[in-house]
């Protein structure tokens, strides 16, 4: 059995982390901090997955969490590459000023 708090408390933390990350993605303008906020959202989802995995006694949630980690690493790789490319081209690190692709 699960010692300590019920699974619901873990899900509450996961929901709060997801909402915090979503707020950061919506409000912040520095692309580095937008990436960090995305990581917080992914971690909230990971915590929910692992909580449900423990609750159901099924390993698929942990496998999914590990896959999410790998996808997050890929996302950080591409995102940081974009930021370095922006820096090389002397563009402002501000997601609202990057409107070259606007049609």
């Amino acid at each position, binding site marked *: 059995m699960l010692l300590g708090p019920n699974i619901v408390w*873990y899900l509450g933390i996961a929901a709060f982390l997801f909402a915090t990350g979503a707020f950061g993605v919506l409000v912040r303008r520095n692309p580095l901090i937008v990436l960090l906020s995305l990581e917080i959202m992914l971690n909230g989802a990971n915590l929910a997955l692992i909580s449900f995995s423990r609750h159901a006694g099924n390993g*698929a949630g942990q496998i999914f969490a590990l896959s999410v980690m790998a996808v997050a690493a890929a996302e950080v790789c591409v995102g940081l590459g974009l930021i370095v490319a922006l820096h090389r081209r002397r563009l402002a690190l501000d997601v609202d000023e990057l409107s070259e692709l606007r049609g």
Partner: protein
Amino acid sequence: MLAISAGGVIVWIVWVAAGFACLASGLAVVSFTNPFFSALALIGNLASLAVLYLLLSAEFVSAAQVLVYAGAVMVMFLFVTAYVGPRREPPWISGPSWQALAAVLACGAIFVEIIVAIGLKASGRLGESAHVGGDFGTPAWIGRLFLTDHLLAFEITSIVLLVAAVGGVILGSHTRRAGAGRHDPEGAAG
């Protein structure tokens, strides 16, 4: 009986400490102006999440979290933050403050929605967790799952990582000829 309740109290104490650290560092990541401090706060967030994973008997995921995230990804983050260097920080929000208000409302709506959904289900199904064996979450167990039931996910993850690595190299390679003419008249003339 006394030993079980004492163990429960210890787990509660660890959970409260890790959960509070998790929430506080999450808020800190979003609210710091300097991306360097945000990245450091995210390391704290990942470490406290690893403690929560341990409480949920996900030992291998916890270790992978510390190794992959706090070890590799955050080092890359700090390196790029240092490479980009101190810049004029863009303000928190652009445009009128109703955008911030809308963001707060949207995130509050997400949070309340998830909590209500959990609360509706919690009365029935989320009460008692399943009993798990001693090998739940161990590396051998995860490895067996990855190489039998979830082999396709494993292989696709490796392909995604490979594609991301190639994309990162291409994005980071020198594009001096294409980028020189934008803001550098001398480069365009030469």
